[in-house]
């Protein structure tokens, strides 16, 4: 070992932490750099991971050990391999000539079949765990290659395993991926469902309907990769692999398969059609330079497109609250919660008891909508109705649009928070997202008021509309902060939010951390959304790109 001991120990410990999912971002970067540039670091890393796998094998469950027992048999044929575990359970003396030879032979043969069957069951069970889609309906389908899970008599409602090659000669069927996307396949067609949110169409036609929670759904074809941005699109692949894409709603990113998804995609908006053939992408019949696609805004009214997206978003079962601040104002004093999951339970009245000082109505970022103006000096804020769904300790995403009057480099300012004054298990902040010293800030408490804070790495823009998203992932414990669809900060935290059960705990918008001084937001706020799940980077990027009144 020529590697210095301290260096070796560092790689060992980093690898160990990586396997635990607890490696900090800065350490991860150092480990990655070492692995990329130093062969000896890679060797240490490989040894350490193999140690981990070996411990699991040596100390693992009897089920795994029985598999290992198979491995350890270096018998040259399957019969010997299969008999061994069966024989191991037989009484001593069974093979010592005390029984007739015929019984012995029969037992060996049965044992062989038993062992083979067990191994087969093991493989089959593994395959069952990889269900990627369910077939939900069929019309006059003639199968060429049906799902393995389908019985000969009936392939209705069968399940598709990840990577399973499927083929129909005729008819139409609908599948639902476990990620939520629905695919309608027209025969003849060849395809596979490769994962919860990935599919491959080798030949034929399908229509993909992608709900908000499945944004980022990816369809591979021989010549193209189509990444969905929350939409509905149709794809046709001919025998040569040439691919036609029609965007029926929303937008998609189109990549050439040969270039991969790292290349700049061709953004296609609703009503646009593209064809990829022999490495050339044509949009609406006009060739484009490979990789030169620029984001294209949707045809027609952008605001209408945004409204459609919001409407889809509102149906997300893990959307807890969505305040649009537009349709009901200025004629109504009621702020409706548009999240289907919670509905009116979280709507609030601007003149009611749940508002301390009413924010005022102002022009929004679109001509068609308004926003709420908060004047920090007047301590304007909204207090949301008390509702259990807002007590979120784990995965969380909060998004909003804001046009801050300044960078607010003074004290902390919360945009959305749930907490109360005091530090104890029962009055902890479950989340408080806003700004601190001109930087975006995510914060919560655990235990008896232990702070966990992550700050954005850069300063946010003031005096213009900005889309902010903060994502809290409880496993691994990490905050990621987005500004205009880009990550501007991320960091791990030590413990998930706990407590927050005191009656004084409440959820507010535009309000500072309760009772800690004049820490009120100054500027415009719009479209505040609270999810009890982590949104993906593509989802957030789409949210920004479709929701931005100016072309990104």
């Amino acid at each position, binding site marked *: 070992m020529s590697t210095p001991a301290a260096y070796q120990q560092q790689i060992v410990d980093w690898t160990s932490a990586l396997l635990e999912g607890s490696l900090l971002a800065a350490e991860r970067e150092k480990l990655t750099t070492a692995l*990329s540039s130093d062969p000896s670091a890679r060797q240490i890393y490989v040894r350490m991971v*193999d*140690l981990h796998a070996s411990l699991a094998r040596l100390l693992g469950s009897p089920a795994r050990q029985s598999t290992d027992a198979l491995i350890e048999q270096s*018998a040259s044929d399957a019969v010997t391999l299969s008999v061994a575990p069966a024989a191991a359970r037989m009484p001593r003396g069974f093979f010592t000539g005390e029984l007739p030879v015929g019984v012995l032979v029969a037992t060996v043969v049965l044992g062989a079949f038993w062992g083979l069957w067990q191994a087969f069951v093991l493989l089959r069970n593994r395959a069952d765990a*990889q269900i990627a889609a369910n077939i939900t309906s069929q019309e006059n389908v003639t199968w060429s290659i049906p799902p393995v899970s389908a019985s000969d008599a009936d392939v209705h409602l069968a399940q598709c395993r990840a990577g399973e090659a499927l083929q129909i000669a005729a008819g139409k069927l609908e599948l639902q991926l476990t990620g939520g996307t629905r695919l309608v396949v027209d025969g003849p067609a060849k395809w596979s469902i490769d994962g919860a949110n990935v599919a491959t169409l080798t030949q034929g036609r399908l229509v993909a309907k992608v709900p908000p929670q499945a944004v980022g759904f990816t369809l591979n074809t021989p010549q193209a990769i189509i990444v969905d941005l929350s939409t509905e699109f149709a794809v046709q692949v001919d025998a040569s692999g040439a691919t036609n894409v029609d965007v029926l709603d929303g937008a998609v990113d189109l990549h050439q398969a040969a270039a991969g998804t790292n290349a700049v995609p061709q953004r296609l908006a609703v009503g646009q059609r593209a064809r990829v053939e022999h490495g050339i992408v044509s949009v609406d019949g006009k060739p484009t330079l490979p990789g030169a696609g620029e984001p294209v805004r949707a045809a027609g009214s952008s605001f209408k497109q945004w409204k459609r997206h919001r409407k889809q978003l509102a149906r997300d079962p893990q959307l807890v609250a969505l305040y649009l601040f537009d349709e009901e104002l200025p004629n109504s004093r009621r702020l409706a919660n548009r999240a289907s999951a919670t509905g009116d339970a979280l709507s609030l009245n601007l003149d009611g008891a749940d508002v301390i000082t009413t924010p005022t109505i102002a022009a929004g970022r679109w001509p068609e909508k308004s926003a709420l103006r908060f004047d920090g000096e007047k301590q304007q804020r909204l207090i949301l109705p008390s509702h259990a769904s807002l007590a979120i300790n784990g995965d969380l995403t909060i998004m909003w649009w804001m046009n801050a009057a300044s960078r607010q480099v003074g004290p902390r300012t919360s945009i959305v928070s749930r907490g109360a004054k005091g530090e104890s298990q029962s009055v902890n902040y479950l989340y408080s997202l806003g700004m601190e010293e001109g930087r975006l800030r995510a914060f919560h408490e655990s235990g008896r008021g232990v702070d966990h804070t992550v700050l954005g790495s850069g300063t946010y823009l003031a005096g213009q509309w900005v889309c902010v998203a903060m994502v809290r992932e409880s496993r691994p414990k990490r905050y990621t902060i987005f500004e205009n669809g880009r990550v501007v900060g991320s960091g791990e935290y030590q413990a998930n939010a706990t407590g927050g059960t005191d009656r004084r705990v409440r959820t507010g918008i535009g309000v500072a951390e309760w009772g800690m001084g004049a820490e009120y937001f100054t500027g415009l706020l719009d479209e505040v959304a609270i999810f009890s799940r982590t949104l993906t980077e593509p989802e957030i990027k789409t949210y920004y790109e479709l929701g931005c009144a100016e072309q990104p």
Partner: protein
Amino acid sequence: MDDLRDQSDFAPRDSTESFVSQFARSEFELRSYILTLLPHWADADDVLQRTSIILWRKFGEWQPGTNFTAWACSIARFEVKNFLRTKERDRHYFTDELVESIGDTRAEMSVELADRRDALRACLQKLSPRDREVIDACYAHEPILAKDAAVKLGRQVNTVYKALIRIRRVLFECIERSLAAGGRS
């Protein structure tokens, strides 16, 4: 990728015995290989399952007499990359380039790793009962995280986490010493 899914890829039924035999012998090596490229147990498990299905389908292409494990690992590497394509914006995963480098390094270390596994058995015997309790709690069924092991043991998460990191380091160093001593003798 399409060739993996062609109907002709399905292995004939009468090759079942041979496949089960080969796969069972290679499964651990394959799992360790995938885990090296995807150092998260659940991810590696997913890819292993998927790889096993593809190996079954493609088994007709394997040439008896050649190294089944090496063949399986080459398919597993491809599947790892497919998996990573769905995660390419996630900084928790290695890049394609790094996967290639680590995969190449891992492929050259098979013999050494087998020796290390033998040494590990002896090193485990040298652990103190308390350390053995921690390591058993972490690996008794599927490997679990230190925080979950802490619940099982009724100890502080941080205590168990630090103990686990230390024990792995101790085992690693014990293996190093054991192999070095063997080399000298």
